[in-house]
């Protein structure tokens, strides 16, 4: 069962998704160890929630992409340990939300799905491990543009997509992340949202998000499969991605489902190196 969450819902009253966020928060509080942070009340009486925040992991529930709850958490400098966006969940589960403030069948189904998802992920989160031994060394080839140095690993086990993400494939597993092109362009990375453990990711599907004050980048997975581990150090130290997006800054590990087919749309070092070089030149030329 989900335990010990401080829940910050967006509670948006003028949108269906906001009403759903509120409903989820209330349902989660059927478990007495979870506590709600009222976004409205916290604005004027922040101190009231200090104790709850200190003693619980923070679950943020945003209704829509405006992400008011996330922004509120960021403003108060709170560390988010889990984040849900209702409209994204609806899309992922192919549920269409009506623009109606009364919750109907679809909406209630979505609430059930999200609650179940939270329970399952919670039970399995403990199994996040670093079973895969990526112990051998990355070999880099670099090129320079101005003073900036771009590294591309040339190990034959590493594949790339044209969306500047890499996958190191060993057997039926892969570790994934972004390339130097992404981290150099974003500059100082301030926020990292990992993909969810156990989530099924399609090839070219989203597997996490990183953000700097310049831009947002969603990691477009080079491979399809199930997320079996995430680099949760990045939640507190997203700058590891700037330091080295291949080693310290890896994002997730995926249990592969159809690598043979994925491979058709992946490229190796030779091709990617040239593509990256060209992109850097176009950007700065």
């Amino acid at each position, binding site marked *: 069962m989900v335990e010990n969450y401080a829940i910050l819902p967006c509670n948006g009253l003028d949108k269906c998704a906001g009403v759903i966020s509120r409903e989820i928060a209330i349902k989660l509080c059927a478990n007495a160890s979870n506590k709600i942070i009222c976004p409205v009340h916290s604005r004027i009486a922040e101190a009231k929630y200090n104790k709850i925040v200190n003693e619980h992991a923070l679950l943020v529930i945003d209704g*829509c*992409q*405006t992400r008011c709850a996330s922004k509120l958490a960021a403003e108060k400098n709170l560390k988010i340990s889990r984040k849900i966006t209702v*409209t994204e969940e609806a899309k992922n589960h192919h549920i269409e939300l009506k623009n109606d403030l009364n919750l109907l069948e679809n909406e209630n189904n979505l609430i059930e799905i999200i609650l179940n998802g939270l329970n399952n992920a919670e039970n399995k989160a403990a199994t996040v491990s670093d079973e895969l031994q990526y112990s051998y060394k990355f070999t880099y080839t670099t090129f320079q543009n101005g003073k900036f140095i771009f590294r591309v690993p040339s190990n034959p086990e590493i594949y790339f*997509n*044209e*969306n500047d993400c890499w996958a190191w494939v060993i057997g039926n597993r892969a570790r994934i992340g972004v390339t130097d092109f992404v981290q150099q362009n974003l500059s100082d990375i301030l926020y990292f949202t990992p993909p969810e453990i156990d989530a099924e990711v*399609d*090839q*070219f*599907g*989203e597997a996490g*998000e990183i953000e700097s004050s310049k*831009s*947002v*980048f*969603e990691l*477009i997975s080079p491979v399809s499969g199930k997320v079996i581990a995430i680099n949760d150090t990045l939640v507190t130290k997203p700058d590891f991605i700037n330091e080295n997006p291949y080693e310290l800054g890896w994002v997730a590990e995926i249990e592969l489902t159809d690598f043979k087919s994925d491979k*058709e*749309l992946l*490229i190796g070092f030779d091709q990617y190196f040239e593509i990256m070089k*060209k*992109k850097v030149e*176009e950007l700065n030329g």
Partner: protein
Amino acid sequence: MSETTFMGVERDKIDWKPTIDYTKCDYCMECVKFCPHKVFELRETEEIKLIIRNANNCVVFCRACSKICGPDALSFPDKNTTTQRIKDIRKEESHG
């Protein structure tokens, strides 16, 4: 831009671009500010103030603009269909 292919397939043949739902769009223009590839165009004086100007500049499989869209007015084609389409074209071309 000289980059006109994606995975060896002509960019023109890949149907990947945002679609604007004008019933939801509130012309906040966050997407225009956000997209570095100039896919969107702001048209101050027209009735429809936002259009897709450079569809082929849109990075295939990138959906970042839809993430920052508050009113959720941007949608993209089904990724799996696009993936399959790219694979098919590659097959056709390697045989042809």
